[in-house]
């Protein structure tokens, strides 16, 4: 784990992070926040509370669905999974993010 202060997930990138996380396997809200932190080597810190409005929005848009399930330690939790539409949206979002990052990179490299 990095000793540096984690970066707050950029505004607008939260949906992408959630979709990407869920593309690996279905999980609950806390699991998503943990997985984001793990996958970014602790660089990204998802604002835990604001994760849920984002999940609700994505579900309303039909990109994810949810169901109650039981965790390893036998607790009731709401599991989220990606829908086909969500998978398509993830591809599009990733594509546009890459273009955005590349463009930003070019701008920042310009001396």
């Amino acid at each position: 784990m990095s000793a540096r202060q984690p970066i707050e997930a950029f505004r607008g990138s939260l949906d992408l992070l959630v979709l990407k996380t869920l593309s690996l396997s279905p999980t609950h809200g806390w699991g998503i926040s943990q997985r984001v932190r793990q996958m970014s080597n602790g660089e990204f810190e998802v604002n835990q509370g604001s994760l849920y409005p984002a999940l609700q929005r994505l579900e309303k848009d039909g990109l994810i669905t949810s169901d109650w399930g039981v965790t390893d330690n036998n607790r009731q939790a709401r599991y989220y999974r990606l829908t086909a539409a969500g998978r398509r949206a993830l591809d599009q979002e990733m594509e546009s993010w890459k273009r955005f990052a590349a463009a930003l990179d070019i701008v920042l490299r310009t001396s």
Partner: protein
Amino acid sequence: MTLLDSARTRLRLLFARRAAESRMRNEFQFHIEMETDALMHAHGLARDEARRRALAAFGGVETHAETMRDGRGLAWLSGLSLDLKLGARMLVKYPMLTIAGGLALAVAIGIGAGWYDLMGKVLAPTIPLPQGERLVAIETQNILTNEPEARVAHDLLDWRRDLRTIQEIGAWRGARRNLLVGRAAPDAIQVAEITAAAFRAAQVPPILGRGLLDADERPGAPPVVVLGYDVWQRAFSGRPDALGTTVQLGNATATVIGVMPEDFAYPVNHHAWTPLSLRASYAPLEGGALSIIGRLAPGVTHAQADAELRVIGERASAALPATHAHLRPRVLPPGLLIDDLGQLAMTNLPVLLVLLIACTTVGTLIYARTATREGEIALRSALGASRARIVGQLFVEALVLATVAAAVGLFAADRLLTWGIESVDRSSGDVPFWITPGLTVSTMVYAAGLTIVCAGLLSVLPALRATRAGVQTHLANRGSGGATLRFGRVWTGAMLVQVALTAIGIPVAMQGALEATRKLHVRAAFPMQDIVAAQLDLEPRFEEETPAASEARQTKLIAALERRLTEEPGVMAVTFADRVPGGLGGRRRVARVEPAAGGSTGAAGTAYEDDLIASVLAPGFLAALDLPIVAGRGFEARDGDPRARAIVVNEAFARAFSRQASGGSPIGGRLRYASSGSNSSSSSSSGSGSTSSSANGEASVEPWYEIVGIVRDLGVDPDDVGEEQPFVFHAATPGAAGIGGMTMSPLRLHVRVQDGPAAQAIAARLPAIVAGVDAALSVRGAQPVDAWIRDRHEGLALQTAALAGVTLLVLCLSALGIFSLVSVSVSRRTREIGLRAALGAHPRHVLAGILSRAIVLMGGGAAAGGGLLLTAVAFGAGPSTPASDVPLFAGYLGMTSLIMLAACLLACIGPARRALRINPIDALRDI
């Protein structure tokens, strides 16, 4: 799929508000617990510390919860529920507005919805049968006379052979017949003689036995009958062994083969069905009157069927020019009177005007209420409520009031329509089966629409006005004790109209009540309770009979009935007329009377012309009622001959004649009715073969009648001013055809007995006695004459009560309007009143300043309404002549002004007291 998923989720979230809330709380809790556990394991923290950090990392739980609620789109829902609660609270907080405004809206919405329901049922009904909308009637119209032509047996055979778009084409005709089962009393029921095809077209199976089959209508087939449910219950107490029983229907016998389900009264209002046998061929226009019914073939529209029928009709017109040149058959849904929906909508327009007036008047009250709530509205605006939000809130409040009113109005309309339909059905039994009590779904939807429109009219304008001024202005005025809202021109105008309506309404209601009282006050010149009157029905003539033979049979039957009844103990006389004295009905006609040549009137050209009521009596009628002849002679037996042309008039007629013809007597004068083309007779004479129109459709010239006598007024038919109406009596032999439409139809039997108890006894036994003479005769509605008069009075009393009720309501609304006006005025002028009080103004002057506007408004409205009313009366719109009506209505208006002034002062008491209690120190503090 995405859209579907999304829609499903939205719906689930919207309607499962509580579930969503609990799910959110559980998720939050799970998250915090997991985070707490993780922190405890990773950092070895104590549970409390770990939980504190977990909560901190999660952020404000309530903030996130609120964001999620907003995201669910439920914010407006909670706002709506708040508005609804507020609306309900407003109903309680302003009880007078709730009662008067609610009643006004209830009356208006009730009338609107009730009228819509009735018009729908009567003019464009939905037939409550399987696929009832595919049932059709074929009606033939004579385009020259504009009369229906029902002698269509010949055409029916053509249609059956040629029409491809209509199936199960059949015919029926109805008649009232006595059903006799064993020794039980006769039951006069409506029987339909119907072909098996027409019976099948209903597509309703019997609940017992079988329906009519083609085999039943073949010549020589055993006579059968299918009974209706009610008849089966009455005659057989619902026993299944009724099947196979032989019953008597009129003079014919038939075997019961089936029982139809409850409420089945197809084709119109029939309760038993017998097969209708038609021959294999008919000459054009041969045979009796038939109604034709059938079903559209699958996939065929009304228009297609109509088009095919028109082609066949045109072919018949070309092939049979002598009889069919002007006959045009067409396809119609059964019972349909208006086939143009636009026209149907137009019938609702005048009623909607009532609603608009009610909305305007209640709108004034709502506006005033809004004015008193300015401060609240300003505060809400200041706290961030948008204009739309406030307008929405006021709309929902009005909607609550309108919904409560609509519920009351719909309930009242439903009860009233049910009562109306049931009483018509009870008295005449002629209500078609598709006109059933209970409001239709479309009426409910219509009423809901009216309610929303009402709420919009009531609230949107006041709300827009109330929210127009800036927040600062409102708050500033609130601080200084004044008000921003004022009664502008629109509202003052609306109130003026309202007061004017009251000024018109009160005298009209007074006059209506007075007229009704006069009409209800009968001074019968004959013993009403000793005469039993009943409607007498004869089976219609058989097809094989000539009109003359039919007439002979009917007169013979009636003569036999007369003889039989005279034998009854206590019966003093038996006679007939087309109208029960003092009851409903009677033919109102316009007549011209020329005085006898050389009579006392002198001037040869002087003639009397007026409208009067014509009634056809048996020659012995007047004598049977002990009515004295005051001049000339009464009817004699020979006057029953239609060629005799002798008529007797009543004293009221003689008085009116004397007034118009300079004091002469009508005896010996000649009377002729205005052409029947302009004054249609209320009786239909197609069944007896006599018509007042000639074959080519032109109205015939009315014959002259000679006035031979004047009879004492019966005293049971007063007009609006309480005087007996002019009557002309014609003599006719009951059952015989008359000339010039003067046939005794409908036929009403009158039995004079010794006293009241004897009358009750004979009324109860009459059906059995009549059927005992001949089963082809039946009676209904047997009761003493005073009961017939009571029946008429019931409707009149209801009408008067309704008029008085509506007027009282309008008066209440006007008073409330004045109250609102003065209230608003006082709250607007608090500071000014305080200032004047501080400067030593006398309370009387302060009051005069406050009340002057109310008095001016009341006076202005009353003057406008009164002026309009008097002008209308002066131009002859009153009940009598302008010369007598103008002073009468001026007197009414005087009383009206007093009532309205009293209402105005009563309405002003509260606000005036409030104004006088204003403390100058308080009022001046904020200056």
